């Protein structure tokens, strides 16, 4: 079975732009979570979606938004990008408790 997939793998944007990151969960997993990992730190929780409904939100500004589609894939949107948004964005899917992570999207904001 394929694992969690994310696209794109790398992305370069400039300040003020908007970005959309995509995630496809493991087949059969209905829950998708998003995390931000800046260099040298552990991942920080951004959102969790289950059955298309938001189940949790981390301490991130409203510039960050997400949604989940009927096929359980998900998008993370970030508006008005700041230099500090440069990070590895990780998506994870789960069935029960254990979260399985994708390879991440590395975003660089210049």
């Amino acid at each position: 079975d394929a694992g969690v997939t994310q696209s794109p793998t790398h992305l370069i944007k400039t300040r003020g732009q908007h970005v959309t990151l995509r995630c496809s969960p493991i087949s059969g997993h209905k829950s998708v979570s998003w995390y931000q990992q800046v260099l040298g730190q552990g991942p920080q929780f951004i959102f969790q979606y289950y059955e298309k409904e938001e189940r949790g939100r981390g301490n991130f500004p409203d510039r960050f938004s997400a949604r989940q589609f009927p096929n359980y894939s998900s998008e993370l949107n970030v508006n008005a990008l700041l230099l500090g948004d440069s990070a590895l964005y990780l998506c994870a899917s789960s069935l029960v408790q254990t979260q399985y992570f994708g390879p991440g999207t590395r975003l660089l904001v210049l």
Partner: protein
Amino acid sequence: SQQGEEDPQALSIQEGENATMNCSYKTSINNLQWYRQNSGRGLVHLILIRSNEREKHSGRLRVTLDTSKKSSSLLITASRAADTASYFCATDAGDTQGGSEKLVFGKGTKLTVNP
């Protein structure tokens, strides 16, 4: 804020030696998980230990959990160069608000296994 704190921040050992990493956390938990990350790529799930378990094994990995001390340890026996990676503990922080499965990670331990 980070819930877990791994110790040490960095560890360098020779192949064949054992590596022990520790994790402390602050609030009550339902379970604790350990993940491995190679060179800033995605995280690989290693093991999950529930709050009512004290020890768990998986291959060369041994995890212990002491809920009274709010701490966990990960032991990798007979280490290999391929074990070189960053290791993170993650707790669910007992968060049941809205059924969220939010994981709270520490900063990780960077393990280097020298051939």
